[in-house]
């Protein structure tokens, strides 16, 4: 680790590829220049950082060359030598290079590694400092004339990335900036018994603003948080798409500028906690904010709590499942989860509790907040000790297998009886083998038909209500807790769904990885239709012909399959087995504080694949 994480510059472009914000860091740039001059040769020399207009046009050029802002990622037939996709690595959709053409000199200068983070309508580019030999190495890689590197053997991106913490750091910078410019910098949700969720750090400080003296600072109010809509993003585990969302508010440059000047004054990030920084900016410090006498106040905890003491934990399981109902393919159910915490404790106490209840055979991974001290690979009786920061934070993440059977099982069958009509059948059993206090709060099943327009549907479910939109049919099985507390439920739903006539979609001119290889024979081969086995295959064939390529960020082409997605929320003990005994939570130095623990189980990607159709699978190794 020769150098830490330094940023030479960062740029924010809007969706018209226009630079709307840029910041360069002369001190870091100066270091780069010195390093370059030391290693310069005929092919390599120092270039000034591009001006905004140069960078914008280089970005637009790359977009044109690589098909999209992110690029192909994988070497495809359109890839050209010297471009990112030539390197043939998916991460080149995130770590990009730009060729800056200096107009007056006619020379091209390679800018790498540029961290590309697309957030809302903005593209955020961050250029971390590397060493000249890294840049040379990348330049060789994207200009190599052979067929692409062999894994682990040839000069490759992996060893570069491993050698460069600055790239990792720059990603964190880019993501933080992304959250700030979209106003999405929110803290994880912590559910308290008294209210659905409690606020974050700023709530802890509310009231003190403008009122001098810590004595005037009231205890934190468990105020309802307006931004709770985004609470799921950090938790759900769903695909975190960075597809541009439109209609966001204009970029607040002053906020960003002040964040940057605090977080990385010279281009070296030191603290990226937006909530801390904005608290310091808005609140400042009063003379009453005295540091603790006995120990150092951590950098991540600039303020100390004052008020009624309590500690809240929220255990949140997210269930992912791929249900096949086929003999040859086993269902897969995994749970990912996290424990969120909010410690309203005075001073700088340590909190610890044992990690009981977690079956080590089922828990696949446990990772912790940096404030936690974990005994080095302890045995079964692991205990976690942590010094909590102010506000809401994620204490730990875990992944586990389901301790009981799947909460919803059964099958979904959809069969196309004609080109525009499908007969479907659901047969589900909910909460089978589940006991109170585990109750299901709501449960709904959605059949998405993104490529067909639903005209009507027919059929009555054994329980719940059905509604449809243009591209989906939704079956709400359970809408309130009381209706289904603590007993298993059988639900069936036979019916038919009618679609508007199929219309072939036009292929987009770009955006697909190998899109240009259109099947020129397609119109010549309709004669084979007579030989098709049945209508269904025929429709399949027809529909899969103009499927568009998905981004590499997607797990597979969702649109190629028929499936039903289950969403539910349960209250009660976690399915993963993660639990915290309030009595075993100890605080040092000892104080009297209430401990509140809540648990919720929600669905992530909980998919019932059409038993009669195609479905994506993955081999599960017999571990």
């Amino acid at each position, binding site marked *: 680790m020769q150098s830490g994480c330094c940023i030479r510059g960062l740029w924010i472009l809007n969706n018209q590829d226009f630079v709307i914000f840029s910041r360069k860091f002369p001190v870091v740039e*100066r270091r780069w220049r010195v390093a370059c001059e030391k290693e310069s040769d005929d092919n390599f020399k120092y270039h000034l950082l591009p001006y905004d207009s140069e960078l914008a046009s280089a970005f637009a050029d790359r977009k044109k060359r690589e098909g999209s802002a992110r690029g192909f990622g*994988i070497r495809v037939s359109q890839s050209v030598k010297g471009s990112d996709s030539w390197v043939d690595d998916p991460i080149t959709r995130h770590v990009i290079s730009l060729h800056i053409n200096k107009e007056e000199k006619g020379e091209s200068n390679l800018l790498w590694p540029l961290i590309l983070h697309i957030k809302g309508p903005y593209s955020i580019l961050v250029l971390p400092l590397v060493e000249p030999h890294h840049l040379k190495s990348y330049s060789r890689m994207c200009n190599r004339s052979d067929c692409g590197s062999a*894994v682990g053997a040839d000069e490759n991106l992996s060893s570069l990335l491993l050698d460069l913490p600055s790239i990792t750091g720059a990603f964190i910078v880019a993501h933080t900036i992304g959250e700030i410019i979209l106003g999405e910098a929110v803290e994880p949700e912590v559910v308290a018994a008294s209210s659905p969720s409690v606020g974050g750090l700023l709530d802890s400080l509310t009231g003190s603003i403008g009122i001098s003296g810590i004595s005037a600072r009231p205890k934190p109010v468990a105020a309802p948080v307006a931004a709770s809509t985004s609470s799921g993003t950090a938790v759900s585990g769903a*695909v975190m798409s960075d597809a541009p969302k439109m209609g966001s508010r204009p970029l607040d440059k002053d906020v960003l500028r002040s964040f940057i000047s605090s977080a990385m004054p010279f281009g070296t990030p030191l603290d990226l906690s937006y909530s801390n920084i904005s608290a310091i900016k808005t609140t400042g410090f009063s003379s009453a904010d005295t540091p603790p006498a006995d120990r150092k106040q951590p950098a991540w905890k600039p303020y100390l709590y004052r008020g009624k003491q309590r500690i809240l934990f929220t255990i949140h399981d997210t269930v992912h499942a791929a249900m096949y109902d086929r003999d040859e393919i086993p269902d897969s159910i995994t749970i990912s989860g996290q424990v969120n915490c909010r410690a309203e404790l005075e001073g700088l106490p340590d909190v610890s509790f044992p990690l009981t209840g977690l079956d080590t055979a089922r828990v696949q991974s446990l990772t912790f907040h940096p404030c936690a001290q974990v005994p080095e690979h302890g045995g079964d009786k692991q205990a976690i000790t942590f010094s909590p920061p102010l506000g809401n934070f994620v204490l730990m993440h875990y992944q586990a297998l389901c301790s009981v059977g799947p909460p919803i099982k059964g099958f979904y069958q959809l069969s196309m009886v004609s080109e525009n009509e499908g007969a479907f059948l659901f047969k589900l059993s909910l909460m089978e083998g589940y006991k109170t206090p585990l109750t299901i709060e709501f449960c709904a099943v959605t059949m998405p038909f993104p490529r067909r327009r639903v005209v009507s549907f027919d059929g009555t479910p054994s329980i719940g209500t059905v509604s449809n939109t243009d591209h989906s049919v939704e079956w709400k099985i359970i809408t309130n807790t009381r209706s289904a507390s603590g007993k298993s439920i059988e639900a069936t739903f036979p019916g038919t769904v009618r679609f508007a006539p199929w219309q072939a979609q036009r292929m987009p001119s770009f955006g697909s990885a190998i899109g240009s290889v259109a099947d020129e024979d397609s119109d010549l081969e309709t004669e084979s239709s007579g030989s098709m086995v049945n209508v269904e295959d025929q429709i399949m064939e027809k529909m899969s012909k103009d499927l568009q390529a998905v981004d590499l960020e997607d797990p597979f082409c969702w649109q190629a399959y028929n499936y039903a997605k289950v969403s539910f929320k349960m209250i009660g003990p976690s399915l993963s087995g993660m639990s915290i005994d309030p009595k075993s939570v100890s605080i040092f130095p000892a104080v009297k504080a209430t401990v509140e623990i809540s648990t919720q189980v929600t669905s*992530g990607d909980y998919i019932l694949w059409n038993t009669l159709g195609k479905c994506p699978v993955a081999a599960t190794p017999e571990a």
Partner: protein
Amino acid sequence: MAGKLLSPTEWESVIDDYNLGGAANLHRWTGGASVVDLCISSLLRKDFPVQLKLNLLTFLEHDSLDDSPLPSSSLSRLIDALRSVIQSPSDPFALKDQFLISTTAIFITSLLDNDELISGSPLRDLVELFLTIINRPNHGLDRHTRGVACECLRQLELAFPCLLSEITPHLWSLCQSERTHVSQWYVLLLSTTILNVVKLKPSGTSISSMSNATIPLIPFSVPQFLIDGVGSDFVWKEKEICYKELRRVVAFLLECPQYLTPFGLVEFMVAIIPVAEELELQASLMRVQFSWLLYTFEPLLCHIFLGIYFKFLDSFQGQELEVASRIMLLSKEPQHHLVFRLLGLHWILGFFALIVGEDEAKKRSILDMSLRFYPTIFDPLAIKALKLDLLAYCSSLICNPGDASGLKGVEADKGVYQVTLFKDGLVSVSAFKWLPPWSTETAVAFRAFHKFLIGGSPHADASSSSVGTLIESDIFYTLQKMLVDSTSESKGLVPVIVACIDRLLGCHKHHWLGEHLLVTLDKHLLPELKKDYSLGSYFPIFERISENDKVSPSGLLELLMRFTIFLVEKHGPDTGLKSWHHGSKILGICRTMLIHRRSSSLFTGLSKLLASTSLHFPDLEVRDNARFYLRMLICVPGKKLKHILNMGGNLPGISPSTHSGAFFNLQFPRALSDPKRSGSIASYIHIERVMPLLVKQSWSLSLPNFGINPDKPGFFEGIRDNESPSDETDTDITMSGNIISESEMLHQQKEPLRVMDAKISEIVSCLRRHFSFIPDYRHMPGIKITISCSLRFDSEALSGTRETNTAANVFDEVDKLPAIYATVLKFTSSAPYGPISSFPIPFLLGSPPKNDKHVTQSDSLAIVPVENGHAEEENFKAPVCIELEPREPMPGLVDVFIESNAENGQIIRGQLHSISVGIEDMFLRAILPDDLAEDDVPSYYVDLFNALWEACESSSSTGRETFVLKGGKGVSAISGTRSVKLLEVPLTSLVQAVERHLAPFVVCIIGEQLVDMVKARGVIKDILWKDFSSDSSFDVTCSPTSSKEPLYLKYLGDEDEGGVQIPTSKKNIGYFQILIFLPPRFHLLFQMELCDYSTLVRIRTDHWPCLAYVDDYLEALFLD
């Protein structure tokens, strides 16, 4: 301070302009004033909003990047401004902080470019200011500003190492006392200072003790060390106290990480690791201190841990698996943004590459992990791709030949294990088999396919020993089978497979893999394919097979043949377009083969295919093109053919669908526009007669004069009939004579009615028979004469500046020679030669440059060119036949125009030197009647000679007779003329000349002596030999003309007004009788009386104008 003050809005524009295009845009705003000065004055104004001031500071920072370093005075002004802002109670902290930061940044960039300033007062003042700020630990309100000041000092220390070395003790004590959250900044400042001290070991005793500060914090002075720039060989260990103290400091610092932010920790580690190394701290201590980093979910902290891990590799011995599986978690946790999951996988790959080495145990433990690398269903495709990379890596670990067997789980067969890895891994993207070929799944699958394929032989591996083992390995077999199977199942994959093969073919190292795959496809896929319309999708593969020399073309040709048969059979009214489409594709393959392979290897199969296509294929265009290709295959030599077919930039493989129009889709060739060139085409393209003319004809009788003359009956009138020959006017406008003859069509000769005697009637019937076989050119093809020429061109002219290397071997040279293609020669003539058909030459090589001048340079080759030169000469000439259909036997000039294509697609167009046509070109043997027996030919000719001889007598009784020409429409009359010519040449040379030039026309030789002589020479055969006695009309002593015609002598006398004496005294040795037919219907008769030293030629003709040329001709023939 020059220049006006800018208003806030003006500043906004300045900054925007600057960001967009740099300092160049600034001048119009500043008017040349110093940007810094303008900024400083604006910064100090109270009425400016704080946000603008912050902007200005950032702007100043940016500007310091590409502006020249600031002078000392500006820096001082900047510090003054900074001081006033810091001390002002009203300015907000945000502005103060930013001012501190920006000033530091500007100082660093300015001072680094200007070494002299380092020792100057501005830097000292700045440091002093910072020290004043930070020297108040735990102070409340401005604590954040203190942190900022620490960071500023740290940056100064980084930029000017050891700047703060002398005050390190103070920094340590400050660091110890600070308890607020900004302690991180103090810690970082201290650790950076310590790092520089440890690294650079500045001399001087001032820092010998960490605990006792010998120098006051303020006033600050820049250390001498920094000014002198000299380090010393100071060793910490030697100073025991110092060393201990340093260890205490480090021990203190090592307690801090828990208080640092993740990014703070990064900076901390950067500083502390080298110090720990220098102090030889126990690595296990580092491990204990920092292994918690691996258990956090912060990617950055994991990354830092890896940094420590590699630094202290030894102390982490045995923990590889643990570390790897922890990193693996990063990629599995769905809460992370995709990028960090990808990074985690990359780190693992990089991690493995670093630790594995030759260690078998480590390889084994990696393989033990392989089950965890399988992609899961909801993994994004990017993750799947990288996980497949990991599996490919495991696979390459197994197939490494040096590897011992006995790996856990691999016991049975490592090949099988490898295959399992591949197959199970690929399941996650198996939808590629039915999704459209452009799907991302497909791209990922084929990427994995490629990685597995080349895993065993990376590019970095220079040895080729692995080739054999790789081909025989199970994994390779499986890969090929998967390829063949999935391709035959879904034709949609064809373009992807082709792209994959292309990729391999384009690689210097894995070219052979691509070829091997093609061979496999040729062997296994081709027989599997159904011969129906679906075959059309596989053409891109065929294209690759057809252009690769390593794959035998026979299988493909056979398949195409069967496909052609299918197409022909299926052809119906509805399938016209399909047939054309597929037929064109087939021809495209044929074309590719022609381009890429040796014609010899293809000849049989391809010619069969092309021939049957050109015969049976239902589509006309396909048939035509097939014929073209067939012609080219047969006629044009290989390399040139390749060149022709490659014309128009149709690189093979790039546009497989344009083949059908290859001839027509060529970009329109530019005409040869170089005037220097086009004007002188004749100077490098030469057309020449094969047989030079005897008479260099410099004149010719112009036909118009002749035709207009009303006194002389037009020769055309004789064969006129009542129908107007309209077709001729259309076809040949250059025939002025014809036009004239049209105008005279009114004159119709009356058929005379006369009485004739037996002899005359015999003559007349002989002539009638003769004339009845002469075609009437107005109604049928006339009699043609052929002039053989040859065409050649100089290669230098077309190859331009291309150097021809005489030392290269001859064949190479031939390949380098330029060629012209599809040459068409067009002829016109002002002489009445009828329509002259143009002459095509498909292909002609340029004649190599004359080697003569090089011969002297390369003595060793002096002989070779001479010998080869002649033989080759013929290769560079194209025979050209000019066929004339004379309307009148007369010499003339034929103008030659060339139109041709050069290799670069240029059209060469222009006129060549004209070809002169002599009277001797008109000489033909008389037409023989169809029913004539071969044996009767000599006597027929003699009879005809005699009849014509009689008829051409000017006073002949046949003079008014008309003879019907072939076809019965036209009639002709004979109007004879006589002439004589005395040739004073020796007998033998005359006979030789006759033999050489007139032999075909000799019909009779009279006189024993001459007969013996000529027979003995054996050149003239199959004629009538007579002695004088056998023909009463001849007498040895007498003049050769018939004695019965006394008028002859008299006429002769009149004729030879020059008083040429007939050499009666000379002994008459014999006669040649020569009958020459002059197209279209005239005759020239010679009767030569041969004496020893002179010969009298009696000439009769029914076309008097020819006498003029005949005279020259005879002179050239015999006298020259």
